[in-house]
């Protein structure tokens, strides 16, 4: 198992949550805070081991809830569901296609808040929900779609940079070697 990938993804989740808390510009301009955690969970589901996915999901959700008024664990079911679905069908997903990445990022960023809101409502909490929620989900989906390729590219770049390069299989085959001279 490649622990570096796991550590990088956990660090990414930590920084994503911090940026969402400390960077207020999107909220001031659009009235919505963008969320990068769903994109990271999608990436972890596509490329990581089960342990990596579980750790990124659990720690990301707990950090998110610790800075939010959510009950602790409130955003966990949405991320578990997202990661689980992506992990289940990852062999059928064309990961390198930009449009697929955008669609995955958009769908994940739109569904994560929806599932979390349903979970909170089912627990008896009263989050702020109204017509403006549609705008919020729309902006989150769009921002997720735009951010997903960047997240994928950054994660792959860091993973490539900090890990040993894969040994490529040589095309040399001794049985096909041309031998000169008399035999």
């Amino acid at each position, binding site marked *: 198992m490649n622990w570096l990938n796991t550590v990088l993804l956990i660090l990414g989740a930590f920084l994503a949550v911090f940026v969402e808390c*400390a960077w207020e510009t999107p909220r001031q301009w659009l009235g919505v805070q963008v969320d990068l955690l769903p994109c990271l969970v999608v990436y972890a589901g596509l490329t990581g081991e089960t342990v990596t996915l579980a750790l990124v999901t659990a720690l990301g959700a707990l950090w998110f809830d610790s*800075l939010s008024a959510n009950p602790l664990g409130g955003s966990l079911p949405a991320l578990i569901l997202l990661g689980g679905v992506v992990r289940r069908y990852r062999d059928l997903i064309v990961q390198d296609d930009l449009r697929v990445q955008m669609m995955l990022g958009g769908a994940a960023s739109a569904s994560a808040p929806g599932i979390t809101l349903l979970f909170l409502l089912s627990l008896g909490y009263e989050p702020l929900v109204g017509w403006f929620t549609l705008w919020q989900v729309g902006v989150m989906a769009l921002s997720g779609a735009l951010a997903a390729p960047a997240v994928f590219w950054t994660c792959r770049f860091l993973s490539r940079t900090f890990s040993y390069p894969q040994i490529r299989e040589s095309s040399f085959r001794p049985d096909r070697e041309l031998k000169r001279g008399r035999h």
Partner: protein
Amino acid sequence: MLKRPRLIALTILILLVLVLVSLPSRKAAQLKLAMGGFFLPLFGLTSSLRLAGGQAADAVIPRRVLLTQIEQLQRENQSLRFRGQQADELLQENDRLRQYLGIQKQTLWKLKLVRVIGRDPANWWRSVLIDAGSRDGLRPNLPVMVNEGLVGRLGVVGLGQSQVLLVGDPGCLVASLIQDGNLRDHGMLAPGDSLDPRILNLTHLSRNSALKPGQKVVTSGLGGLFPRGIVIGEVVDSRPAEYGLSTEARVKLAANLNHLEEVWVLLLP
């Protein structure tokens, strides 16, 4: 079918959700603060960077501008001193009259200035984080305000950081009063249905309220959380509610909740 490691991971995560959701609120709050503690170094770093940026910006302000500002502030300070003296006299007079009438003496507010370090990352709550906690004398439910008006109340209070539930969050309802001449109508300030966080709903107003745009809304002191008379905002418009049994007004907050950098916490006895 799910493979064994996936099944184990899924089971652990579901169990984690169940355990966390069923934790007692106090334990959950402690755990939240512990998890939030991971971010303290980063918050400290950003505060230092902001401070350094501010100092760098201050360093390039021309001396003439600074001198003009000092002159203006000195004049303002003098005027405020006179008003302060007048207010002291009025306070003494008020205390004397209260004593004659047998009404309890009013205590002056003690304020603590704190810095806002972060905002709720979830879009369905309205809360901010501040850089002070129980070691600074803060405790849950203390009112929080800025010069313009009410901001909210303290929620979870940690050792060195606390959460402020902003006005407009479902967890921060405010007993309010419309103050306009003889009109004194009580209502409840509740979350609004607008994307603009400054527009909230004032509900449970009496059916025959003579509401007009621009009327001042202040805290009523009912409920015991907020002292009476803190400015909240002003009425924007009104409409009948609950099949005409009551009136509902939209209120524009005096404080701009989108741009909070420093806030005052009222240290009530």
